[in-house]
């Protein structure tokens, strides 16, 4: 209990005076406080009076204590705060703030705003949401009694993505602290002292050279216009803001799309996003407008006539597709579901394949999805770790993935775990960025993963330091597993992968005593002889640590998870109902009122092979994820959904223009199996349409019933109807399974060499984002060379 402005209130131990005030609806102006950051006490705006304390302590740094008598607002404090703010403003372009015509100005100034220098709010890119202006208005500052000094610092515009004008900077330190405390990067700091203090980098390096990741967190944290996203700084206040989910990687960050003049002009992270809590990465924050507004977006359907692709109407194109698809035997037709499709599109695509064509030749066009999903099915453990689990882990291992580049927001979670004392190790080739993320790096090629992991398992079992209570009560096949380790000889491991017993012991010593942990694994494991075996071994490590929910696959497509959940798999119906299982099959036959093919279809690699050999004659591709080295010459018929022209245009017979994810409603499922909504921030460009609509249109032309949907949510309703497990929180519920199984460790040699498709690290559907967004290319070549 304490009193604040005469009001008696309760408070939580450890809260600051500012937090107690806020919790009780008492406003205290602040500038340097920012959600998620430690108190800093730099701006001195939050000064309060506390009985028996000398002077005016800042509310943001003063811990609340029992019996405190606090004055949060009175005339004296208001005067004091005005003084403080006037001092701050004396070094900030302030003519507009105090101009008594400013309200009119807001109405009548017609964009005099493209000058480089900001000399007042009318010229400032921040005018839409300026905290400094809000506080000035709150305190009612009408004049500034101190002489104005302009710092006359050079504008910093050499780096990609955002501009910096430190003449507007009030040195609140929010950008520096966000970069350090939340992102764990520390690409900027407050340099020098006194009057010369400035946010900067070591030796004035460019951000690019200084290791900045261009996540934009600093731009979002800045209360002034000092930092501004270049692409969107002159658009002013958006007409519309739409919350959606980022479909550029599988983290599933929640984003706010800002629409102006019917176009997406800017994107900001949503502070309420369950996965990202206000964070994003360079792709989500800066790349989306350029990606979706490109001039060469496909705007109308194309059909091949006299060996050339020519524009056609939707009617023509869908009719042609229906007619030609009907000509092939079911076994000669195959479907590839892009891991960037929405759940609705993926569901309808597999339904189309099975009901309209009668084939199970459908799979996700990702080499990584296959082993991940199969391994889960084999383990009967469909649910893996959540993103929040990562933050709470006592230890973390990242295997075979460049996580800071591929799934940047996860590093925010790893950073949180680190702060709580987690030891973070990397197994794999040295990361290109952010080596500070890792406490230890075991540098080993994919061929060394097997011996290394075998060694880790062996030492864990040998040392008996594992969670034996968990293992005996929850795991099957411990003895078999243990016996399989007999073959493993630690001494020879060093010979095969260069890792000594010492190093392995060091690693295991970080795992065993630390309880719950997480293992995040990436697509490098595909280069191992038996990726499934590797996943099994990683899961074994977690089981031995009593931490079965800690396995996180770094899925390569934004919706790899959902596309599989929806049954875009050759041997499983939606929600992993086995085709070989008669009951499942007949349930779906009933709900879809159709006969379904019983024979499992071809998987992704097999479909590609069959297309090359000519046994697949018709191929339906959604998003162009076909490796370049695959020759489709023998293919008879290729249908393509795409958003831009792609190399597949050479072979495609029909191209349907698809809507980008910012232009459609629907759902996608993140790597933590969270089903999240997409909401359109703009209309599909030209005549393009969401993928699911395209599929329905073709089905209609084929006179097949069951595709009459007028919205994505109607499709989602059907998905939930045919399998109630998919409602709400995804298929996590499937996890409620019997016991876990420890996989015996068995060395296998890759039987036949499959095609390996190296996707560009940053991609959307088949497209390399660095080709679409020039600033991304600059960043990419800085990080990876070339």
């Amino acid at each position, binding site marked *: 209990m304490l009193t604040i402005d005469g009001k008696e209130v309760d408070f939580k131990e450890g809260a600051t005076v500012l937090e107690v005030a806020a919790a009780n609806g008492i406003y205290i102006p602040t500038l340097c406080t920012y959600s998620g950051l430690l108190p800093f006490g730099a701006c001195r705006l939050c000064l309060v009076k506390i009985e028996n304390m000398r002077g005016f302590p800042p509310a943001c740094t003063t811990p609340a204590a029992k019996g405190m008598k606090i004055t949060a607002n009175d005339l004296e404090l208001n005067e004091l705060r005005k003084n403080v703010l006037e001092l701050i403003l004396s070094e900030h372009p302030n003519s507009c703030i105090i101009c008594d015509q400013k309200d009119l100005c807001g109405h009548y100034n017609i964009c005099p705003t493209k000058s480089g220098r900001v000399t007042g709010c009318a010229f400032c890119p921040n005018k839409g949401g300026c905290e400094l202006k809000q506080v000035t208005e709150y305190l009612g500052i009408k004049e500034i009694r101190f002489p104005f000094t302009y710092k006359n610092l050079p504008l910093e515009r050499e780096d990609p993505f955002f501009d910096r004008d430190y003449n507007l900077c009030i040195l609140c330190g929010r950008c*520096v602290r966000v970069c350090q405390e939340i992102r764990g990067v520390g*690409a900027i*700091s*407050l340099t*020098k002292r006194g009057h010369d203090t400035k946010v*900067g980098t*070591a030796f004035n390096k460019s951000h690019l050279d200084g290791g900045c990741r261009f996540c934009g967190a600093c731009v979002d944290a800045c209360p002034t216009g000092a930092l501004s996203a270049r692409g969107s700084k002159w658009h002013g206040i958006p007409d519309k803001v739409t919350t959606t989910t980022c479909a550029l990687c599988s983290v599933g960050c929640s984003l706010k799309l800002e629409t102006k003049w019917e176009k997406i002009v800017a994107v900001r992270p949503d502070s309420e996003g369950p996965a990202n809590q206000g964070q994003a990465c360079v792709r989500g924050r800066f790349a989306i407008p350029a990606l979706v507004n490109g001039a060469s977006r496909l705007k109308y359907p194309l059909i091949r006539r006299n060996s050339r692709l020519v524009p056609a109407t939707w009617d023509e194109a869908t009719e042609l597709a229906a007619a030609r698809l009907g000509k092939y035997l079911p076994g000669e037709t195959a479907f590839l579901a892009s891991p960037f499709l929405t759940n609705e599109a993926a569901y309808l695509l597999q339904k189309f394949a099975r009901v309209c064509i009668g084939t199970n030749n459908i799979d996700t066009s990702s080499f990584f999805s296959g082993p991940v999903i199969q391994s889960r099915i084999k383990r009967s453990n469909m649910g893996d770790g959540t993103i929040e689990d990562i933050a709470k882990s006592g230890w973390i291992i990242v295997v075979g993935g460049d996580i800071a580049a591929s799934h940047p927001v996860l590093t925010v979670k790893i950073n949180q775990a680190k702060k709580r004392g987690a030891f973070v190790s990397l197994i794999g080739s040295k990361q290109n960025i952010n080596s500070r993320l890792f406490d230890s790096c075991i540098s080993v090629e994919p061929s060394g993963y097997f011996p290394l992991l075998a060694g880790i398992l062996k030492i864990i079992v040998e040392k008996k330091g594992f969670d034996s209570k968990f293992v005996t009560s929850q795991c099957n096949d411990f003895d078999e597993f243990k016996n399989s380790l007999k073959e493993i000889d630690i001494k020879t491991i060093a010979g095969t992968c260069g890792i000594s017993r010492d190093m392995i012991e060091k690693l295991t010593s970080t795992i065993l005593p630390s309880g719950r942990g997480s293992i995040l694994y990436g697509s490098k494991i595909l280069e191992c002889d038996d990726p499934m075996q590797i996943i099994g071994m990683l899961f074994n490590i977690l089981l031995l640590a009593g931490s079965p929910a800690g396995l996180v696959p770094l899925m390569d497509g934004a919706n790899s998870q959902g596309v599989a959940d929806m049954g875009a798999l050759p041997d499983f119906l939606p929600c992993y109902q086995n085709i070989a299982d008669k009951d499942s099959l007949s349930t779906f036959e009933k709900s879809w009122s159709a006969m379904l093919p019983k024979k499992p279809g071809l998987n992704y690699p097999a479909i590609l092979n069959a297309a090359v050999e000519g046994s697949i004659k018709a191929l339906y591709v959604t998003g162009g994820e076909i490796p370049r080295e695959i020759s489709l010459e023998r293919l008879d018929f290729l249908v393509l959904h795409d958003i831009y022209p792609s190399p597949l245009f050479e072979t495609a017979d029909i191209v349907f223009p698809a809507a980008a994810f910012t232009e459609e409603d629907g759902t996608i499922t993140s790597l933590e199996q969270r089903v999240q909504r997409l909401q359109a921030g703009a209309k599909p460009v030209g005549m393009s349409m969401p993928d699911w609509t395209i599929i329905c249109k073709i089905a209609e032309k084929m006179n097949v019933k069951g595709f009459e949907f007028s919205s994505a949510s109607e499709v989602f309703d059907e998905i939930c109807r045919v399998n109630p497990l998919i409602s709400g929180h995804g298929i996590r519920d499937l996890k409620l399974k019997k016991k876990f199984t420890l996989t015996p460790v068995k060395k296998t040699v890759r039987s036949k060499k499959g095609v390996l498709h190296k996707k560009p690290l940053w991609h959307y559907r088949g497209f390399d984002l660095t080709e679409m967004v020039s600033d991304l290319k600059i960043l990419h070549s800085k990080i990876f060379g070339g």
Partner: protein
Amino acid sequence: MKNTIKDIIKPYQGEKGSLIPILQAVQEKTGFISEDAISTIAMDMNMSEHEIYGVATFYTQFRYTKPGDHMVKVCLGTACHVRGGEQLLDRTENILNIKPGQTTLDSAFSLERVACMGCCALAPVIVVDDKIYPNVAGPKVEKIISRYSSSDEKE
């Protein structure tokens, strides 16, 4: 270079709050704090180079360029200031073509501004290496500098 920096910081390893002593040791042994030094220290302390730089520049005692053969200090203490210290600094900057804290390309001179050398009666003063030159008004400074640049003469 890296090795010697590593050697210098070795004794401090694992010590919390040892950043300032480390920086001091590096400056003492190598004469300045190089980019290399900062990145080595950063690696060692698991901090970013920018954080280290931020801390270092908060203190005025560190320099970031290799000192030249001769150190030129221009006094801007109160007495020197009122008697033309600023102009003296301007002139010196022009002659050497560098700003305070920098070193000429041929590594002959470094320039620094200082506050009061304790001989205000002689203001404005300039100090080259350890020699104090009094009442340096007008073009006098050119002569002084040229004395050091023409040959290796050190007084």
